[in-house]
């Protein structure tokens, strides 16, 4: 973010885009999309040892209308895939998706009839987190990457206005 201080005064000068992106990246609120084991590590990431809230993700919102980050944490079963898609569609722009864990990224250990081989077959994904399950550190890093992506201008360089 380019900030310039005007001489002789207590003013900061910056582009509106930069300020908007700084605000958005500092308060990314995830949707509660906990599916399986990764959901437990996601909950642990909000627990005292790892504390996701210090990065701005103060609350997990249950309603997709109020969330801007969907963390798909866990294996996506055939029955659940349309639900994931529907929730993604219900989220308001701008929205981002983290595919947490091996199962969400590629089907993981479960190369069989019941699991969708990667949630990116259902929704577009911004950051993939490897691990089975990834440690909460991995999820914190993924959220940091999302924040970087937001500050650099979002997907395809286009960031929808709030």
């Amino acid at each position, binding site marked *: 973010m380019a900030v310039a201080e005007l001489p002789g005064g207590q003013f900061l000068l910056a582009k509106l885009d930069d300020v908007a992106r700084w605000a958005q990246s500092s308060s990314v609120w995830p949707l*509660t*999309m*906990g*599916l*399986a*084991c990764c*959901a*437990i*590590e996601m*909950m*642990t990431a909000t*627990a*005292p*040892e790892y504390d996701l809230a210090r990065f701005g993700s103060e609350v*997990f919102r*249950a309603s997709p209308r109020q969330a801007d980050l969907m963390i798909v944490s*866990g*294996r996506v*079963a*055939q*029955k*659940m895939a349309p*639900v994931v898609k529907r*929730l993604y569609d219900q989220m308001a722009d701008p929205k981002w998706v983290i595919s947490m864990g091996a199962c969400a990224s590629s089907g993981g*250990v*479960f*190369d*069989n*009839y*019941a*699991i969708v081989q990667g949630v990116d077959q259902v929704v577009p994904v911004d950051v993939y987190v490897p691990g*089975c*399950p990834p*440690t909460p550190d991995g999820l914190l890093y993924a959220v940091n990457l999302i924040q970087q992506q937001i500050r650099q201008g979002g997907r395809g360089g286009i960031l929808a206005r709030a």
Partner: protein
Amino acid sequence: MVLSMGPQHPSTHGVLQAVTEIEGETVMKAEPEIGYLHTGIEKSAENLFWTQASTVIERMDYLSPLSNACCYVMGVEQLLGITDEIPLRARQSRVLLCELHRIASHCVWLGTGGIDLGAISGFFYAFDLREKILDLTELSGGARMHPNYLRIGGLRDDLPQGFIDRLDALIEMYPRRMREMRNLLQANPILQDRMVDVGILSADDALAWGITGPALRGSGVAYDVRRAFPYSGYENYEFDVITRSEGDAYARFLVRLDEMDESMRIVRQVRKELDTPGPVMIDDTKYAAPPKETIALSMEALIHHFKIVSEGFRVPPGDVYQAIEGPRGELGYYIVSNGDNRPWRVRTRPPSMYNLQVLKQIAVGELIADMVVMIGSLDPVFGEVDR
């Protein structure tokens, strides 16, 4: 009015769709819909070697993964006929890890149960206690969850240096942490208001619906697989089976809290025994891979290791039902072998599925706000319900 709670809901403890018919605020009918996490674990297990199958089986009850693995390997050991040859230290470590994972699972239950009611502080205390147990799991098995540490015939490796010291530190901090959590939640009038006389389950109903575990013991039946059908040396340890007679959500709450204390009592007894060193894997070379140190020195050991890893071993044909007391109830595996190096069928007896089914009965007549309390008091894990 028909209301669909879930499958995405912050308080259903996973992907449950509880289709509820309500009249005002009273539930007239509740029909839980499951299958949103169906993973085909049983089919995957049929296509993996006996040792590899425990990796997918661990992912059923993901709050206490080593319990699943323990039950499965004990079942296969029965089919192989080597149950009596499992080394003492391996049996003690299995008991230790199963009890630690029981405490860890109850920590998640306690934390999330509190959050469902708005008591968010309990979550932080409970998950911090769980962190200490995950540290121990990571130290011994290599991963925080799903370490795949248990093997058919014993353990993969002995408990590492530093494990006992950390275990001692956990044993020391545990009473204070439990006191803090009990002070926050147990006598809390709001929690009692929300849990007492909610979701009452009689003993007759519990048996008819196949309920086991803390939910059954909260209704007065003292069935605990560790006492009724002792396994892995549980007959050598002193612990009480906690029961309550009221059968409501608060009774199940108290049973689980006291069960955590009993688990720690077992952990303290096992810890004293772990001072004695010993082997952790059976000697039988058909099932045990040779120790890593010998592989670089001996051609036979290298070939043996190669064959065990690439071909597995064959288990004589037969079927067996092995059950343990998991954190949710009787976790059982009906394992069928047809003589091959892969399981033929691994049917899971999922305690959470039967525990959850009773929601159809106990929810009728309760308020919609109590649905969350009742689901929490039954403590389902959807990895196990749906498999």
